[in-house]
């Protein structure tokens, strides 16, 4: 048997898996969204016609962007801090970062209900300290959704940044210093550009996961915090299969579009960061 044939046999199980669990379901979704039973754009027209649907879509985009940015702004410095620790302390800190990942999103969201509720920990504390005498509405707000999602997704951001940062040879920073860079300049001209790819990858992963978030906005958000996944779920429960499939297609295409745009932008960013004359 020629080598190429043998290789294609080795690839068969993986290919089968991909077809069964990815190509076929996505195919079915596209089929349901676009054929009813003949080709139709009716479901998409319905989406565009009602402002409420568009509002959900825009809300999904906004929440995902804000959560991804917040995770970047918190996660990158945390990863940087951990990388700068002595080698023996780093695995311990990373372990602590990863612990929450072993709890299901549902459990963590319920935990936020306990923390943010009317009789929750935060309100208890605020009232004990006399900052307020009425419980503040924290639960079922947009803020709660942001806090919950950031907490849930932050470890992923930190891990991605951290692994990119550990790839950077520490001697590069030393070289920058001895060649005349102050520590801030060494960071801006050497560390930042070399860790940027990792930071962008982390931000995109968080963004993608946010776009599909379901439980958190449903449980701790208000009525206006509905996201695409919640809308799809409610359409499915009303057996509007075609419309639900169209919504899924829109979500998928929007996510892919953002990914492609971000990738193109990063190439320029990395290049520009290397060029800057003043940090």
């Amino acid at each position: 048997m020629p080598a190429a044939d043998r290789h294609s046999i080795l690839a068969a199980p993986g290919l089968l898996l991909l077809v069964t669990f990815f190509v076929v379901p996505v195919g079915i979704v596209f089929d349901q969204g676009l054929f009813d039973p003949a080709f139709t754009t009716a479901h998409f027209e319905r989406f565009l016609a009602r402002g409420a649907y568009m509002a959900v879509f825009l809300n999904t985009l906004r929440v995902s962007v804000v959560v991804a940015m917040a995770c970047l702004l918190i996660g990158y410095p945390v990863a940087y801090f951990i990388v700068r620790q002595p080698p023996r302390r780093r695995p311990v800190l990373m372990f602590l970062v990863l612990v929450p990942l072993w709890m299901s999103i549902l459990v963590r969201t319920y935990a936020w209900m306990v923390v943010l509720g009317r009789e929750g920990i935060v309100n208890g504390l605020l009232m004990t300290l006399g900052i307020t005498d009425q419980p503040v509405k924290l639960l079922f707000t947009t803020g709660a959704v942001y806090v919950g999602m950031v907490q849930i997704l932050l470890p992923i951001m930190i891990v991605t940044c951290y692994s990119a940062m550990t790839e950077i040879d520490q001697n590069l920073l030393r070289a920058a210093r001895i060649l005349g860079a102050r520590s801030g300049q060494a960071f801006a001209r050497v560390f930042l550009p070399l860790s940027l790819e990792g930071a962008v990858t982390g931000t995109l992963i968080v963004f993608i996961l946010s776009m599909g978030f379901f439980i958190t906005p449903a449980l701790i958000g208000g009525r206006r915090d509905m996201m695409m996944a919640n809308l799809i779920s409610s359409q499915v429960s009303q057996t509007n299969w075609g419309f639900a499939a169209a919504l899924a297609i829109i979500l998928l295409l929007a996510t892919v579009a953002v990914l492609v745009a971000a990738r193109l932008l990063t190439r320029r960013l990395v290049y520009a960061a290397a060029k800057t004359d003043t940090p």
Partner: protein
Amino acid sequence: MTDSTEPSGARIRFHNVSKRYGDVAALADFDLEIGAGEFLTLLGPSGSGKTTALNILAGFTEASGGDVRIDGQSILSLPPEKRNVGMVFQSFALFPHMSVFENVAFPLKLRKTPKPVMRDKVAEALDMVRLGDYAGRRPSELSGGQQQRVALARAVVFQPAVLLMDESLSALDLKLREAMRLEIRHLHSRLGSTIVFVTHDQGEALTLSDRIAVMRDGRIAQIDTPDRVYDQPTTRFVAEFIGQTNLFDVTPADGGGVHVADLGVAIPAEGMNGAKAISLRPEKIRALANGSDAPDAGMVVFDGMVDEPLFLGETVQYSVNLPSGRTMQFRENRGEGRAPLRRNDRVRLAFRPHDAVPIVRD
């Protein structure tokens, strides 16, 4: 870089510097004076504290005690970027996201060198390492030897008074390493900077240095010119670490001099006072033709049996079993007008008494 206004090398002084990591003394009572423009090598086995000494000089590691001065000024409170020191790292540490040009221009940009001057200086530095045509490449597009030369150009382009090199050649293959030795020597005479070179390779140390500081356990075991370190080691450690040698314990003999039990001979007094052992280099020992006497009456003669000839190219090295049961090495040029010795041949060996170097300490 050759005009007369340029700053030349700086004097460096380590004054009783120590560095502890928990219970480990990476450096202890480290005292060293390096002259302006000198090429000094720190030579020692892995873990002897060479990198620690260099890192303290560069400002990457804080000393636990003592002082370091450059041209009389204490530098321990200065950050690395204020020390006017260039460094070539073992891993080269070229910035992967910058071109060769940008790498070499990096120290000049930070010094706010005007663009036209910067371009000239970078071009000159790259020409010096014969990489003028590679300015636009990325480091990843260069061979190991080329990366090494870019690192060198980057380290000297801002004319630092001191240049540090930590095992800078050990990532290269043998041939390249030998070619780079010549380039570095050449560079040194051209730049005039003081060079502190770190290596565990004695060959590198012997060919490059004005002086060698042999290090052991965070201290300097011996510091001297290459030929003196090779010819006159004062400790067992130095004798064994640099080149190959035969070490024999000795005891004081009647009438001065020492007795070498393993060889069954005595060596006359000259310079042997206080010797605990002698070091005999393999190339200082000669095999005598069958049954003949030593060519020169003063030579010390002893017998042995050839164990294993080792062909080394222009020389052959023989392992010889001594009557005491010990094995020693001697080396001779091939074709000395005598049939080569073979395994189990009896052989009569001789050396001049002054070629036996007295070892006074371990």
